[in-house]
């Protein structure tokens, strides 16, 4: 059991990294990875919302949609749950945790359309994970997101000052750097063999 959970965590964290191996959540990845501070803020917000969203949608799916035979409303329900959850968290933080809100506040609205959140809620259903396994999966995924986005923002801060030809400035060089980072992550693919 413990071994299994560790495996789920490692798979979500590194081997099937959500950004570089699954290509999910790329819009915020290229959007906010321009500086180290914003990368930290975004990562924290994603971790927080991803965990909450996974719990809520897991419970909604298993105790509401499944018993009532309404699985075909899954997509609509999940996205609405996430959207309202983000709204609610934003209001709650604004009222009770001023400092946290000033740190995370601007990233929260961006998260509704972050496909990483929705993808994780779908994947834990598709993989038939229990609530505990889903939690581990969500934490692993969010940390994997954080790891890559923080690493990458450091690279992009350097790129700002690098002599790059005009056509490659901005997005193109960011994509090519992402390609090299992804190449490094490709080396983890055989890792499963070790743990089994």
């Amino acid at each position, binding site marked *: 059991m413990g071994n299994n959970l560790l495996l789920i965590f490692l798979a979500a964290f590194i081997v099937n990294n959500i950004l570089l191996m699954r290509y999910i959540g790329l819009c915020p990845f290229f959007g906010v990875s321009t500086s180290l501070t914003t990368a930290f803020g975004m990562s924290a917000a994603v971790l927080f919302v991803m965990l909450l969203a996974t719990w809520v949608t897991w419970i909604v799916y298993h105790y509401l949609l499944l018993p009532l035979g309404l699985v075909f409303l899954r997509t609509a329900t999940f996205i609405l749950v996430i959207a309202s959850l983000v709204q609610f968290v934003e209001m709650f933080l604004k009222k009770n945790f001023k400092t946290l809100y000033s740190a995370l506040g601007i990233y929260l609205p961006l998260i509704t359309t972050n*496909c990483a959140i929705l993808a994780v809620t779908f994947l834990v259903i598709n993989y038939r994970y229990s609530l505990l396994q889903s939690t581990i999966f969500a934490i692993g995924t969010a940390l994997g997101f954080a790891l890559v986005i923080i690493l990458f923002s450091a690279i992009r801060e350097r790129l700002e000052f690098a002599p790059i030809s005009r056509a490659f400035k901005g997005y193109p060089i960011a994509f090519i750097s992402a390609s090299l980072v992804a190449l490094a992550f490709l080396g983890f693919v055989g890792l499963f063999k070790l743990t089994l």
Partner: protein
Amino acid sequence: MNQKVNRLKYLTDGIIIENPILVIMIGLCPTLATSITAKDALGMGIATSFVLICSNIVISAIRKFVPDSIRIPIFIIIISTFVTIVDYVMQAYAPTLYRVLGVFVPLIVVNCIILGRAEAFAYHHNIFDSFLDGLGKSLGFILVIGLMGIIREYLSQGSVFGIAIGPKFLISQPILFMIFPPGGFLLIGLLKAFINKFIIKSETFE
């Protein structure tokens, strides 16, 4: 006359000048994830286009009845309805494609192109214009994702749409790198650089 030219512009803008992927830089996830072969890329392109065009039309049709303050939730419901329709129809009639695209089919709902066009265009324009806009953006999306699919499939398997063409060495010694995520990132980076160099001449592309 002037009006006609304007309308045509709704259609053509989306293809190159306002191409959703390479110029506006949204909708990257499906573009990279599902462009491993030309067929998958085209399937994803058509599925997304269906949702984009339908939701544009419906949102434009009901725009006068929708209270401003709750327009976003209503957009989301409409979009996710069409996404679910695509999801089930694909499962029933194209099961192989559905298994390849996997979680990216329901994820069409968070494709920023669709919500973006609903909010920025369909909510303020009439049905026909919204249809043209949706069609134009769809063509732009299909163009890029299809191109990526063709290039990646050709380099990694020596074939296009499953039909083997080109030099023999691509089949015996394919460039497998293009199948993997790094290949996708590299290709879209090069395409973007190409667009920057030849299509967008101004300094504003940063």
